[in-house]
């Protein structure tokens, strides 16, 4: 460092032609240590303005001007730079003109060997007058007011171009600078990366503190090793995978919010150092793991070394995420399928109930097509969590387009009447044992009644029954539930079950199913008062039903019920005689528990109609039979009455005949003797 006094000259003498300035450049070994000394040439004094001399002694090791003479030619408006020959020889390849308050680039004469040119901290607005420095390698224009990159087309040897802290809006006019090694454009107003694709030797590109919205168009930068994009407004990054040598990428303080926008980074094999801090993405909980997972070659993240532990954690977390995603995808698929099926079943049900006008039939056709394209039975144990037993089909979920059966822990849900067939399946003891709630939806209650014995067999622990859209319309239908072993809770959803609109339905249920000692009906607890009320309301009905029925009717009704149970049992597969007798005992036990209600039965409409038909037949027969009897009876009666009428007359005639016969005793005696001899 050469200490000394330094005088600066205001560079605004460009307006006045006749100012004479000498710029003395004193070269030194290191560019940053070169200083500039300015000496005024007071020979040409027609310069109106005063030229100030400033003391530039400042205590930093940044560039200072060389000892130069700045001469302005009378012809051009640019100051001309001249150095003393000693300096020219000493520092023939460097020229430092920092903080010279230059507003224009001066003409540098006779310095064709110059290799380093430093214009830092000036007020230069345009790059000019350096086209002759064709050996220039290092050009520093940091902290000026340059608005456009220009005037560099002859500097074919240029390797380092520092244009930081200027006012450049566009990257352009770098076509000839094919040897460029370092390009520094930080602190400008650049909005787009362009016109750099030919810089195949470029190693460092600094575009920090610009106005870039995205990163693109990086093809051709085959040597780029460091790319600094800090403090921009970048939302997505592309093309980085086309940079084969890129090792360091700084994206701090941008606007990246998702990993997708920087997905190309995952493809890059050369990246070892990356920074994302100050981006929205860095706030996410999965940030570190995702980055580490996708960029396994990374050595530093956000200026911190990546440890093995972190890498391991990242992969573990990523795997878990993957699993979860897959799982949830599967789940949502299943759910969708379920939803479709339930909709289908619901629609069918509505049609059945004649609630929906048949304009929907065309839609129905369309919709039933799509589910039928799926495989008819998708057995997925996604919902159930039981181990499969060998030999038994233990699926938690069966989905077809007409019905749905689902076992979800302790609930068995059946949608659609086809689902009732599933009760025939071989349920594993564990599954069946866990089921405590059975829910029926979109199934006619009459059909449910028929499978209740099966339900009792297969799911002995079912304590809670739920009915929705099952067409419960009569109180009588509740009688059918009495055949179950035990029901703790009953939920009758008002939707599709008109019986709930009745005032007395709950009491009737409590009354008829009093032997179950139910705990809850439709969610509300059953109190002692409820039970008493139920008994009060319907107790006499029970009494009448039991004690006032003639015994033969009692027997016939009870026998009927038992017969029906047998019939259902016989229809199930795998019947064993042992079971039947057990059922017998069971039903007898049940009826023993509540004989006075046992006669209150429910026969489904079908069976009842069948019975009525039978009765009609029998009636016909009986009528005929009785008619015959009556005919006989009336005939006999008629004959009897006729006899009664005729008898007096007949009697008299009999008597008269007898008297006439005996009138003549002698002839009568003779006649009698004759008769006796004849007889022999």
């Amino acid at each position, binding site marked *: 460092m050469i200490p000394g006094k330094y005088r600066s000259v205001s560079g605004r003498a460009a307006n006045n032609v006749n100012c004479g300035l000498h710029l003395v450049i004193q070269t030194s070994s290191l560019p940053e240590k070169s200083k500039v000394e300015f000496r005024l040439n007071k020979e040409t004094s027609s310069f109106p303005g005063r030229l100030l001399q400033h003391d530039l002694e400042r205590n930093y090791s940044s560039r200072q001007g060389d000892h130069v003479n700045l001469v302005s030619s009378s012809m051009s408006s640019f100051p001309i730079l001249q150095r003393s020959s000693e300096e020219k020889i000493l520092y023939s390849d460097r020229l430092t003109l920092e903080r010279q308050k230059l507003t224009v680039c001066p003409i540098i004469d006779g310095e064709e060997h110059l290799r380093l040119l430093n214009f830092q901290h000036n007020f230069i607005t345009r790059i000019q007058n350096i086209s002759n420095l064709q050996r220039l390698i290092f050009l520093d224009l940091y902290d000026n007011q340059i608005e456009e990159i220009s005037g560099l087309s002859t500097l074919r040897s240029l390797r380092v171009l520092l244009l930081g802290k200027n006012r450049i809006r566009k990257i352009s006019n770098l076509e000839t600078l094919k040897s460029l090694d370092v390009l520094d454009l930080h602190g400008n107003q650049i909005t787009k990366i362009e016109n750099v694709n030919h810089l195949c030797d470029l190693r460092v590109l600094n575009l920090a503190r610009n106005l870039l919205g995205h990163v693109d168009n990086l093809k051709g930068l085959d040597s780029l090793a460091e790319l600094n994009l800090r403090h921009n407004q970048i939302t997505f990054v592309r093309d980085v995978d086309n940079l084969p040598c890129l090792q360091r990428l700084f994206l701090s303080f941008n606007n990246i919010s998702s990993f997708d926008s920087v997905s190309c980074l995952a493809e890059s094999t050369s990246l070892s150092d990356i920074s994302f801090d100050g981006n929205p993405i860095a706030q996410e909980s999965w940030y570190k793991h995702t980055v580490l997972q996708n960029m396994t070659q990374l050595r530093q993240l956000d200026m911190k070394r990546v440890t093995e532990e972190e890498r391991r954690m990242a992969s573990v977390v990523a795997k878990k995420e993957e699993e979860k995603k897959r799982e949830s995808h599967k789940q949502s698929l299943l759910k969708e399928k379920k939803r479709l099926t339930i909709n289908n079943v619901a629609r069918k049900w509505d049609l059945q109930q004649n609630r929906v006008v048949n304009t929907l039939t065309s839609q129905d056709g369309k919709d039933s097509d799509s589910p039928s394209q799926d495989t008819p039975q998708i057995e997925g144990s996604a919902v159930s969590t039981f181990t499969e037993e060998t030999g038994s089909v233990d699926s938690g979920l069966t989905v077809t387009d007409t019905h749905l059966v689902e076992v979800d822990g302790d609930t068995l849900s059946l949608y659609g009447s086809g689902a009732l067939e599933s009760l025939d399946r071989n349920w594993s003891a564990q599954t069946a044992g866990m089921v405590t709630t059975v829910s029926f939806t979109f199934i006619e209650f009459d059909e449910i009644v028929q499978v209740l014995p099966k339900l009792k067999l297969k799911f002995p622990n079912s304590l809670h029954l739920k009915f929705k859209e099952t067409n419960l319309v*009569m*109180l*009588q239908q509740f009688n059918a539930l009495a055949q179950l072993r035990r029901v703790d809770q009953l939920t009758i959803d008002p939707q599709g079950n*008109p019986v709930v*609109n*009745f*005032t*007395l339905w709950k009491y009737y249920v409590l009354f008829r199913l*009093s032997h179950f*000692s139910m705990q809850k009906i439709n969610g509300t607890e059953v109190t*002692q008062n409820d*039970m*008493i009320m139920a*008994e*009060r*309301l319907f*107790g*006499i*009905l*029970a*009494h*009448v*039903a*039991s*004690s*006032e*029925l*003639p015994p*033969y*009717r*009692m*027997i*016939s009704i009870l*026998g009927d019920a038992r017969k029906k149970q047998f019939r259902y049992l016989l229809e199930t597969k795998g019947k064993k005689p042992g079971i039947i007798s057990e059922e017998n005992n069971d039903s007898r*036990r*049940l009826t*023993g*528990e*509540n*004989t*006075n209600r046992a*006669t*209150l039965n429910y*026969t489904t409409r079908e069976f*009842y109609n069948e019975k*009525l038909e039978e*009765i009609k037949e*029998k*009636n016909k*027969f*009986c*009528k005929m*039979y*009785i008619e015959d*009897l*009556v005919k006989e*009876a*009336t005939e006999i*009666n*008629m004959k009897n009455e006729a006899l009664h009428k005729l008898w007096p007359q007949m009697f008299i005639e009999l008597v008269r005949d007898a008297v006439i016969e005996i009138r003549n005793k002698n002839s009568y005696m003779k006649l009698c003797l004759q008769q006796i001899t004849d007889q022999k």
Partner: protein
Amino acid sequence: MLSPERLALPDYEYLAQRHVLTYMEDAVCQLLENKEDINQYGIARFFTEYFNSVCQGTHVLFREFSFIQATPHNRASFLRAFWRCFRTVGKNGDLLTMKEYHCLLQLLCPDFPLELTQKAARIVLMDDAMDCLMSFSDFLFAFQIQFYYSEFLESVAAIYQDLLSGKNPNTVIVPTSSSGQHRQRPALGEASLLEGVEASLFYQRLENLWDRHKYSCPPPALVKEVLSNVQRLTFYGFLVALSRHHGINQALGALPDKGDLMHDPAMDEELERLVVRSRLHRISRQYRADEPGAFGFQRRDRPETLERGPSASAPSPYPPRWGTQE
């Protein structure tokens, strides 16, 4: 026994009038249905029980509608049974809809037709707002009239319509449609202005029914009484008046008077016993684990069925037609 009028009727008619054949047929039918069970204790006993129950009116319980409707005695028994079983509902003060009453009816007769209940409800509600709630006594009396005299009421309805539309067996209808309509409309309009038909005219037309009908009709004297109180009446007004008339109710003999409708001390006693027993049941059940039904359990309940004797024989204070069990 050998009364002259009885002997005057030919056999079939006599039997038909007393509906003897119906019961005989039904008895044989029941016999057929339950022959396995009845075989055990003999046919004679079966017939005894059957006709006893006919006498007591319990033969209609849980039978099909066609049987219940078959004879007036059956109908009356059914009404009585309904009253006895559900009197407590009425006593509780609940007002129920027509559908719910129908449900209760169905508990005793599974295939009871809805139209009958609807018609009965119409009487109570005066053909207005069919979803309204009705009290037990209103419904019961209206139902009685509707059910017991259903055929009679049909004919009355036809007569009423005729009168309302101005038709008279004596008038000649000119067969041009427009004038026919013209003729009818003013008559209707007149009628609706004045609400219903003239009572005396109405009664005249009704008189024919008594001669023609084979099925039961309310006693003519009482009907005349009903009609003599008003000048004009509507159909439903007439029915309501019938249902509320004490005399007709007593003539029917199935139900007690309105004032006594909620009284049945014998049944109340029985009910109290049942309630107490059920309470004890519940308490004992709470303390008892799930024991397999031991005989002791059964036996406790069994006696209930054998208890029939005393309660059934409790003399009911109502119409002597119901024979008490000696």
